[in-house]
């Protein structure tokens, strides 16, 4: 891989046969494929040659469907998993459709990982409770972070609350993971917008669930990922509950075409989201940007 999560220095300009440069995808083989819901598929990828790469939960890769194009997809693996790198893809266009269609044995190109992470290793989250709020496929970029938090061994770490919203029970992704995290001590609440007959769980918006979970706002942090409307409402609700905006992190989305800060498409005001994001603290500029139109 051209760069690892830890690399900060300039990548060597002279390229060797081993380093095809930052814009060239590294061929990976699809070794696993799971249809999560009707239009969401998880691909498990391993490099065809060379070593596994490192990543931090929250970072994304540019995945190439050869001959179709490239799309930004979060790495959804957890760092405890020693194995293929998972990418959960929602079919929303030609590239993601081609990725979702790929089958075991197929070759998919990978560039990355790019961008900022949820920062589960940094001091902010080391103490106090962590409230994780996901909307729809927004749970995918959070998967690795939740797994890290649930299994952190630091005695100072507080409890982990996960509130995950979905359109309907059939659209709930990672049900097995949610159950496993619950067994391992996390408090899990899944809520849906529309309940079919027989659904015994929560019905309502994720924000409605926040008043029911018992976290300590003065020491809590929050991670939010979902549609932008959901993120700003959730962030505001958490600030109203008393969480410091600087301790809330959101994962933002704009058009990503290079992952390297060169193509200009992912600008959001002062940020190049592939470089400065996708994960940013919900404080100051971000809170303001989320309330502005057409930025």
């Amino acid at each position, binding site marked *: 891989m051209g760069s690892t999560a830890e690399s900060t220095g300039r990548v060597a300009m002279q390229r060797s046969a081993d380093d095809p440069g930052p814009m060239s995808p590294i061929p990976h083989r699809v070794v696993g494929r799971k249809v999560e819901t009707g239009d969401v598929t998880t691909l498990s990828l391993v490099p065809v040659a060379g070593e596994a790469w490192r990543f931090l939960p929250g970072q994304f890769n540019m995945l190439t469907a050869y001959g179709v194009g490239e799309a930004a997809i979060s790495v959804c693996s957890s760092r405890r998993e020693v194995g293929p790198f998972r990418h959960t893809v929602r079919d929303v*266009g030609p590239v993601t459709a081609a990725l979702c269609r790929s089958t075991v044995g197929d070759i998919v190109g990978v560039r990355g990982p790019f961008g900022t992470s949820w920062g589960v290793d940094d001091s902010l989250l080391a103490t106090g409770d962590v409230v994780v709020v996901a909307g729809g496929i927004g749970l995918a970029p959070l998967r690795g972070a939740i797994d890290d938090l649930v299994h952190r061994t630091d005695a100072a770490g507080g409890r982990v609350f996960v509130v995950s919203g*979905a*359109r309907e029970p059939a*659209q709930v992704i990672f049900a097995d993971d949610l159950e496993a995290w619950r067994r391992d001590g996390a408090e899990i609440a899944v809520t849906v917008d529309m309940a079919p007959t027989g659904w015994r769980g929560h*019905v*309502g918006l994720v*924000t409605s669930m926040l*008043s029911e979970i018992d976290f300590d706002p003065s020491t809590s942090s929050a991670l939010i990922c979902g549609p932008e409307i959901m993120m700003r409402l959730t962030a505001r609700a958490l600030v109203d509950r008393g969480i410091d905006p600087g301790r809330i992190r959101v994962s933002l989305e704009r058009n990503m075409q290079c992952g390297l800060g060169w193509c200009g498409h992912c600008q959001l005001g002062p940020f190049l989201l592939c470089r400065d994001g996708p994960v940013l603290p919900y404080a100051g500029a971000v809170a303001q940007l989320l309330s502005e139109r057409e930025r």
Partner: protein
Amino acid sequence: MMRPVAELVASHPLFAGLPEGTTAEIAACARNVAFLPGELVLAEGQPADTLFLVRRGRVAIEIHAPDRGSIVVETVGPGGAVGWSWMFPPYRWQFDARALGPVGAVAIDATCLRAKADADDALGRLLVTRVAGVLLQRLQATRIRLLDLYGTDRAR
């Protein structure tokens, strides 16, 4: 050991932060209730005579359709409240509310509460403000749900 009902009223988010005298006034209309799993808390079309403060468990707001059975439109958990139709004529429940599991609640008699509100303008205003605050949150959340934010067909 059951806590006194006045304490339960005072500690519920709907009435949080009110002077003890005020919550005592409200608690004078209140009693402790429990529902078994599947039991109706209130039923569509029946006289709306109670405000339920949910303490434990979860209540589903439902409506019945002949071809679909009971459709849950929202669930209300601990700290939430169920039943608003007692505030406005014709004082009739619009939805069913059903206990999803064992539910513990405080039931406040609406006739009693309305009488107290009529007799005490300050209490009346306070009730309307608190209730309207919750209704506003519910309305806003419902509007957001109408957007179908996680819908799958937005891009097609």
